[in-house]
């Protein structure tokens, strides 16, 4: 067992630290720019230095570095410590770009990747439908080839960034006669067009991050298909190979845990900090057991990945492990908040409240986390069937599903 990264990597870490010391936060006149502009300028410099967008070729705005899990880990640690912006998050950079790198044509890559990486193009996802949630491959939105265009009819739901996105990447049934998984294509389309009607959904928090998107003869050029006709399911499943997707898992839980500790240090109970209450402290330590488990599990996965070995069950447990931790954190936070939990987050002007009520967003968000991207119950199915080798449940659709992958 050896937790050091070795001298070569420690030298890399030192270079990264020097770079961060010189470049973040921005100084002089640049310090007065808007937050997003500061982040944009910094990202450009960090990419030139080879630290961000490492798996994207230089000609598409990346830094084109050979994959290196340890360097990636060091960058996460050092950027995290300096609170410097990392790569843009969101479905464009994290889903569309890797998909195009693997499946896109040269012109698609040139047309979409650089501006997505830069943050100029914002994407939304058209996957789920009212009748196709956990059973996504049963989606019914259909695309027909008419001349040199695809003409699309149907409905998508749970579309985020609907108010900012210029483009959508969507799974559409283009081969109605093919089997469930073989009849789907992966299409790109413009959002601003007459055939698309976007209706925001009001969610449990009162905000509207999601929308329903209705297609009534929406159009997109024939060559905006990624991969071949009928390959869409495979195209959409294929983006889990890149270094950034590897870990994160342990780090996220730790970050949230640290925020909870800060809350417990700030909140007072009968003249004492909540964290000094033995009952509260014991709860926090119990949670720490889960947080550290998640962290060590990610180290084990990293080690085995570096050695080209298998991690067995562990990767299947990451998502639900994180959701469970987020849920426990929100439950402790709720009891720490006391009456502040009665207030709606954000609605109350600062000064009249403690500011703690913003934790209610985390509370609600932790519910979303157990649903989005495959509900915890679907995760349990996957763990049981793929991880523990239990038989698939017989269902009316199971014959059809047997050939597909989930």
């Amino acid at each position, binding site marked *: *067992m*050896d*937790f*050091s*990264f*070795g001298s070569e990597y420690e030298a890399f870490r030192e270079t990264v630290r020097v770079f961060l010391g010189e470049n973040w936060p921005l100084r002089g006149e640049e310090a007065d720019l808007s937050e997003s502009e500061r982040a944009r300028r910094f990202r450009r410099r960090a990419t030139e230095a080879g630290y961000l967008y490492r798996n994207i070729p230089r000609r598409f705005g990346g830094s084109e570095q050979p994959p290196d899990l*340890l360097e990636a*880990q060091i960058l996460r640690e050092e950027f995290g410590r300096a609170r410097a912006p990392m790569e843009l998050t969101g479905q464009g950079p994290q889903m569309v770009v890797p998909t195009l790198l693997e499946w896109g044509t040269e012109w698609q890559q040139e047309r979409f990747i650089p501006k997505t990486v830069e943050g100029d193009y914002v994407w939304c996802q058209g996957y789920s439908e009212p009748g196709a949630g956990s059973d996504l491959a049963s989606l019914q939105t259909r695309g027909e080839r008419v001349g040199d265009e695809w003409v699309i009819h149907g409905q998508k739901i749970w579309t985020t960034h609907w108010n900012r996105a210029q483009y959508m990447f969507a799974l559409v049934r283009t081969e109605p006669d093919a089997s469930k998984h073989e009849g789907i294509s992966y299409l790109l389309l413009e959002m601003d067009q007459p055939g698309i009607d976007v209706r925001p959904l009001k969610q449990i928090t009162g905000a509207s991050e999601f929308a329903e998107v209705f297609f009534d003869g929406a159009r997109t050029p024939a060559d905006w298909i990624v991969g071949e006709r009928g390959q869409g399911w495979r195209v959409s499943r294929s983006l889990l190979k890149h270094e950034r997707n590897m870990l994160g898992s342990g780090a996220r839980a730790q970050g949230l845990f640290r925020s909870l*500790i800060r809350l*417990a*240090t700030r909140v007072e109970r009968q003249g004492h900090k909540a*964290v000094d209450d*033995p009952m509260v*402290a*014991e709860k*926090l*330590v*119990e949670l*720490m*057991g*889960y947080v*550290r*488990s*998640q*962290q*060590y*599990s990610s*180290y*084990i996965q*990293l*080690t*085995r990945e*570096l*050695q080209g070995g298998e991690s067995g*069950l*562990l990767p299947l*447990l990451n998502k*639900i*492990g994180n959701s*469970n931790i987020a849920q426990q954190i929100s439950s402790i936070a709720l009891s720490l908040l006391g009456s502040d939990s009665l207030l709606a987050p954000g609605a109350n002007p600062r000064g009249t409240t403690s500011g703690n009520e913003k934790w209610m967003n985390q509370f609600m968000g932790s519910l979303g986390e157990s649903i989005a991207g495959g509900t915890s*119950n679907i*995760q*349990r*199915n996957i*763990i*049981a*069937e793929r*991880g*523990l*080798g*239990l*038989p*698939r*449940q*017989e269902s009316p659709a199971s014959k059809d599903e047997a050939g597909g992958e989930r």
Partner: protein
Amino acid sequence: MNFDLSEEQRLLESSLDRFLAERCPVARVRELFDSGEGLDETLWRGLSELGVMGLHLPEEYGGSGLELLDLAVVAEAFGRHATPGPFLEHVLGGLAIALGGSEEQRSRWLPGLASGELRVSLALAEGEDRWQPEQWQLPGGARVSGVKEHVPHASGADLFVVGLHGGTLGLVEGSDPGLRGEPLEILDRSRPLSRLHLDGAGCDLLPRGAEAAPRMRDAGLVLLAADACGGGIACLDLAVAYAGTREQFGVKIGSFQALKHQLADMAIHIHPARGLFWFAAHAFEHVPEESAVSAALAKAHLTDRFLDVARASVEAHGGIGYTWECDVQFWLKRAVFDRAFLGDPSCHRRRVAEQMDWSE
């Protein structure tokens, strides 16, 4: 960056698995459990020949000079096989003498302990769950009198490492006429416990006992956590195997989603937690400033999860799970032992909380 067992540790793991499957399969565990003997002399000799008893002791005293992680690999295998017998207290007793003993004490006892010819037990706990060194009240001296609770495998032990007031340690020989063991009715019949009455028993103080005692305790917490990890995974595996054979409504019960989810939750509880005892074992020698906290955290978390998983495994077995005939009982009772021995999870979480600087 390498957070995994070494080649040698994996080899040790697999050779122990083979050895235990052959020499102490679950049918043998059942025999020992039913008889309440706890100690299988043949098994003890076999394990001693494998070098397990002195794995962590210095080579100059007949040990192998390895580290706590190696010992923890053994403990995890014992948990996996629900192996009965006096392993935990024996290796901890040896560790206490190696860390806190004089040259004379070390050369007198360690070679016999390493070879398994001599057997040592631990007399630590006192009433009201006083397991921790700072809580011990038994007055030390050349002669000691008082009562120690929950002493494992006391019958036939050649030596006792005894916890004394001031958090220090002394040695009392098993043959001392001032000793009387009173066997307790116990839940986990694979690890019998006694109340030990000391009545003017001769006591040989360990010169560095006060330093050795918390270290020995920390090592014990790690080994219990390792045992719990192995035991928890065994409980899951038993339940998965049962779900794959038992049929109801014309299908394997493992195809029912309700049971799948229960089994998946068991996996979520136990599998990612293995790193806790790995790190704590590693920290024992290599990251001393984190050793106490990580050992307490591993013990608290893993023994709690072991009990969760053992309970769920009984439930997954249905009616048969509630019978003496069903093997899961060995692990359920082992889980209760691992959880309570050396102090319960709540006690160790409080200890962690006291040592944490939350403002960091």
